[in-house]
């Protein structure tokens, strides 16, 4: 056999192998291609099935956009006046501008100490107090609304105004350490501290009792304004901590008979209760477990700013990293003790009159009794004389 023939013979297996491999590869590719096309087909089918939903969503979105545009167009047609009351920018219908000015001025007198609030200056507040449908009023930027039906009383309207103004000021306080660690809620004038008195008198806490008895340090502790490090032991006795854990756990949906908290709630293990309290809401600071709640703390802020006079709120805002106690001292220009005594005096003055209104109530009751008696004597059943 010639050399060429031998080479051909030797390479025949290789050629065969190559051919077989190519065939296998081709077969695999063919299979893959088939699979791919099947997957592609499935995907296309799925996409097709989603198209009606997509079209519906697009239709709804376009309708909403059209309505928004229409509302903006309508709002642009609404004739409004912008008036200033202190730092408040109020947008009202022309016929209600004077009414808005009058009502906001009355409410603003209570908030004058907060005139430097940057949030108040940047917000626009729309006002409507109408019998029919509210007119669309378009506001840019930070905004709030006081929009009520005409049958609401003016007292109700003013409460709504206080709510709006208090919420706007809250956004300033929330940027401070005071707001992050201590309290963050809408700021109202403390006209009714009866709830705070009730909380102080009935809260199971040794520092609350000390505050009620006249200890200013107790008041500071009860408010979570201790100078030093604060913890549960400084506010509550062991029994009180167990009681507190039961109440707070219940609020977080951990009912007392659940096995994971039974060592605290049922067996009364104080250490377990302490850990439970600290870990129930890890995102909040320990100060939030101090005996007295938001209303008492907001009253303290209000009194501090009021006592500090002009520039008090400015000083408060100028020290965002001050601890709550320091911030209040800076704002008020008073020591913590003085502030605590001021706060305590104010709260004691608001001790609730538990049976307030008994005299008018009794007069009204007697009138109704007389009316019913007269009806009894004038029955149509029979008359003699």
């Amino acid at each position, binding site marked *: 056999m010639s050399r060429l023939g031998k080479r051909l013979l030797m390479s025949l297996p290789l050629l065969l192998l190559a051919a077989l491999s190519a065939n296998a590869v081709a077969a695999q590719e063919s299979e893959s291609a088939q699979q791919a096309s099947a997957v592609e087909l499935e995907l296309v089918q799925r996409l097709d099935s989603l198209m009606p939903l997509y079209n519906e969503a697009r239709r709804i979105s376009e309708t909403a956009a059209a309505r928004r545009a229409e509302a903006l167009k309508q709002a642009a047609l609404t004739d409004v006046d912008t008036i200033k009351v202190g730092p408040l920018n109020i947008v009202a219908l022309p016929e209600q501008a004077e009414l808005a000015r009058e009502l906001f001025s009355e409410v603003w007198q209570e908030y004058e100490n907060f005139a430097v609030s940057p949030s108040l200056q940047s917000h626009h507040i729309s006002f409507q107090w109408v*019998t029919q449908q509210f007119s669309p009023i378009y506001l840019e930027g930070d905004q709030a609304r006081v929009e009520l*039906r*005409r*049958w609401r009383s003016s007292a109700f309207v003013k409460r709504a105004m206080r709510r709006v103004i208090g919420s706007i000021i809250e956004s300033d306080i929330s940027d401070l350490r005071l707001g992050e660690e201590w309290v963050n809620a809408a700021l109202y004038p403390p006209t009714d501290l009866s709830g705070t*008195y*009730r909380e*102080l*008198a*009935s*809260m*199971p*806490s*040794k520092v609350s*009792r000390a505050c*009620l*008895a006249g200890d200013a340090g107790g008041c500071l502790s009860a408010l979570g304004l201790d100078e030093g490090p604060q913890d549960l032991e400084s506010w509550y*006795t062991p*029994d*009180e901590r167990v*009681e507190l854990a039961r109440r707070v756990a219940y609020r977080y949906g951990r009912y007392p008979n659940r096995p994971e908290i039974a060592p605290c709630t049922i067996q009364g293990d104080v250490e377990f209760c302490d850990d439970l309290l600290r870990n129930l809401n890890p995102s909040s600071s320990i100060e939030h477990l101090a005996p007295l709640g938001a209303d008492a703390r907001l009253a303290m802020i209000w009194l501090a700013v009021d006592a500090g006079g002009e520039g008090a709120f400015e000083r408060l805002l100028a020290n965002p990293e001050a601890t709550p106690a320091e911030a209040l001292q800076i704002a008020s220009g008073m020591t913590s003790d003085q502030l605590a005594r001021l706060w305590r005096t104010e709260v004691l003055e608001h*001790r*609730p009159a*538990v*049976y307030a*209104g*008994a005299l*008018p*109530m*009794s007069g*009204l*009751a*007697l009138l*109704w*009794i007389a009316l*019913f*008696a007269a*009806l*009894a*004597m*004038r*029955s*149509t*059943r*029979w*008359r*003699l*004389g």
Partner: protein
Amino acid sequence: MYQPMLYLHWKQVRFGLIPFILAAFALPLLTVQGLGVPAGMDAASLDAYRVVSQSHQWLMFYPLLAATIGIVLALSAWNWDHQLKHVYALSLPLTRMEFAMLKMGAGAALAVLPIFALWIGAHVATLSITLPEGLHAYPNELAFRFGLAVLVAYALLFAMAAGTVKTTVYVVSAVVVLLVVGGNSNELLANFFPIFESVTFVEWAVQLLATAPGPFEVFSGSWTLIDV
């Protein structure tokens, strides 16, 4: 004439009234039951909280008891008259107005018994516990409110019982119809009275009756024996 009327009413209602007198005496005692210092616990720490929160559980029974006593006295006042077709009243040398007035006075006098029982019970209850600092007892105010509530309920039911059955049916039917129809026609009412856009008719009616100047204002409000 008043004394015989009083005696007749007492004769009619005494067996029904005695349980209510006992209940009025016992209710303040039940209110303070269990309030005190459990063994091994720090007394002052939890007392105030427990006193206020646990005593509030009994608050709803005071107006209920007052209303029940008033209703019992009022219905018993006219019971025999209804049964005997008012023959006795017609035979008396009195005008209708005088007769009704004496009868009402007799019932009101009998109402003093459960009111007095509650007043005594409230004082006994107050003396039986040591109040923590910051808490106060209001036995006199509670008894006063209780008395007014009894008399209002008594006067209302007395007036209804004094009338004919037909009148009572009319009044009760009107109330039921107003509540049912009013409850279902809120939307229609809202077209004419904007207030009903936010408030349901039933809610509005209840509020009107239960707060000043409504007749049932005395039943709402504070009924607490111990508070801050």
